[in-house]
């Protein structure tokens, strides 16, 4: 097994107030260490404000950590300069919670998916369109709808579009920041299946950020629980569910709504 991402003792502090020379800090990340192996999924679970999204931004090289190291694919990314980081960023892509806000409503589906290729100056125009079309088909949007704009798609299809865009640069790591939370449950299942299928065929690695423990347990190999900028518990998904050790994990588990029976129903009657 190969380590794709290894984060060690990552700190991120934000200045919250300054008065007469004394500064106040908020430690959004307070010494976070974790690692993800290639082609596996790590789920990051925690309450709002626990630092999940800050960690995502640091991993995506969109925020610079205050201190700590972050090895991605054999290189310490946190120590790289801006120019070198720019070469790393295409390999780490993000999918956000609300596809309605994260897609440009003035572009067509094809343009949205081709845009990352234009920015990175890859291929000529024809090849780009061809690739974008292939990607749309790959995520389950028919090429006939390539000329439609985001508002003509349903919520689930928009999220498919966002995934296609994230895949355009053939990334190694996909950060899914609450990517299923805004969807209906039948659509959640469809997108979850798509993610599993893509992971199996493209050997993708996922950092899956969520507060839905059930979905985390379904999709992830390992689950990390965050609380106040720290990872308080990290382990294999089954073990964490069976014997949660930290108070924060137990709280989150207790708050997860559950109902029995329905999921065990056989197909049909």
């Amino acid at each position, binding site marked *: 097994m190969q380590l794709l991402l290894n984060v060690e003792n990552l700190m991120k502090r934000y200045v919250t107030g300054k008065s007469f020379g004394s500064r106040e800090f908020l430690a959004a990340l307070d010494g976070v260490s974790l690692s993800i192996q290639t082609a596996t999924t790590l789920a990051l679970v925690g309450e709002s404000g626990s630092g999940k999204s800050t960690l995502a931004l640091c991993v995506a090289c969109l925020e610079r950590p205050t201190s700590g190291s972050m090895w991605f694919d054999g290189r310490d990314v946190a120590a790289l300069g801006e120019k070198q980081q720019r070469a790393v960023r295409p390999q780490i892509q993000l999918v956000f919670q609300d596809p309605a806000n994260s897609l440009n409503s003035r572009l067509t589906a094809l343009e949205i998916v081709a845009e990352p290729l234009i920015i990175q100056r890859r291929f000529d125009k024809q090849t780009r369109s061809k690739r974008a079309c292939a990607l749309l088909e790959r995520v389950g949007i028919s090429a006939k709808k390539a000329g439609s704009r985001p508002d003509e798609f349903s919520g689930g299809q928009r999220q498919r579009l966002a995934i296609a865009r994230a895949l355009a640069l053939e990334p190694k790591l996909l950060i899914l920041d609450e990517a299923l939370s805004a969807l209906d449950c*039948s659509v959640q*299942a469809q997108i979850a299946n798509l993610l599993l299928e893509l992971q199996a065929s493209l050997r993708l690695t996922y950092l899956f950020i969520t507060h839905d423990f059930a979905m985390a*347990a*379904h999709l992830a190999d390992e689950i990390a629980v965050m609380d106040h900028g720290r990872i308080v518990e990290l382990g294999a998904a089954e073990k964490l569910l069976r014997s949660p050790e930290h108070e924060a994990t137990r709280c989150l588990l207790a708050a997860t709504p*559950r109902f029995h*029976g*329905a999921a065990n129903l056989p197909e049909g009657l």
Partner: protein
Amino acid sequence: MRPLLQVQDLHVAYRSRTGEVCHALAGLSFDLGPGEILGVLGESGSGKSTLAASLLRLLPPNGIITGGRILFEGQDVLHARPREMEKLRGRRISLIFQEPSVALHPAMRVRDQVEEVLRAHEPLDFAARRNRTRQVLATLFSAEADRIANSYPHQLSGGQRQRVLVAQAIACGPSVVLADEPTASLDPTTQQEILTLFRTLRQALGLSMVLITHNPGLLAGLADRVLVLYAGRAVEVGPAESVLASPQHPYTRALLRCVPPLDQKSQASRKAMLPVISGESPNLSVLVRGCPFEPRCPEKMEVCKSCDPAAVPLSEAHTVSCFKFPG
């Protein structure tokens, strides 16, 4: 016991600028008893929010109630004059909105926002209003009430903001509270807090509630009855435990199977493909004959294509609209 709120064969349609007509609700009927919590479960496009809006007659101008009756405490809501509506809305029936950060005024203190509701509906003088506001906030925030009352929305957390919306909704002592996805933007711990709050309020004030959501997990342990909405129709209605634990309608069964269980028993079921509902969500702008779920139904029969299924009682309180069950 006479129901507090009765909805009978309600039809609501939206007319788009191109003249297309979208049938958001197509013959919905249900009752709500005093002190009862009814969970309405539906996916986007099933008519959930249309239902909340039509109960208060707050539909947008292009939304038309084309048929049916809504009776509240015996009064016909659909034929009430605007003056009478104002007495109902926010006072006897109130609505908790989905997004607390949007529903609250950003530049008004919490106290003033709750008082505003009282000013609109109750003939109280300044001191009495203040007093009532303090009481309402105290029931929701206990020790922190004074600090919260003086705060602006941006100084509060998501859960606190949601509580302020609840305070506005119960300020006039309504008998029915409608909540449209009240916890959608909250994390699970805060979600549970709000659900517990609903439970307490129901007991303390004897409130009836209509809780509209797309998340079946929220209804377990809170709702007394569950109504499953599909394409503007009630496909299944029954006691919460039986609908959620042993659903009968093919749509309810398919929907509940999509949710991964938390107590995953084995390694094998993890990362397995989840069952999905095949096909596309219904297009409401074409009026179809037959059962709206027929194109996606795994158990469809010949009759489903041509006839509308009527509600079939399975037990005293549990009804299903499906031809699978002989009437």
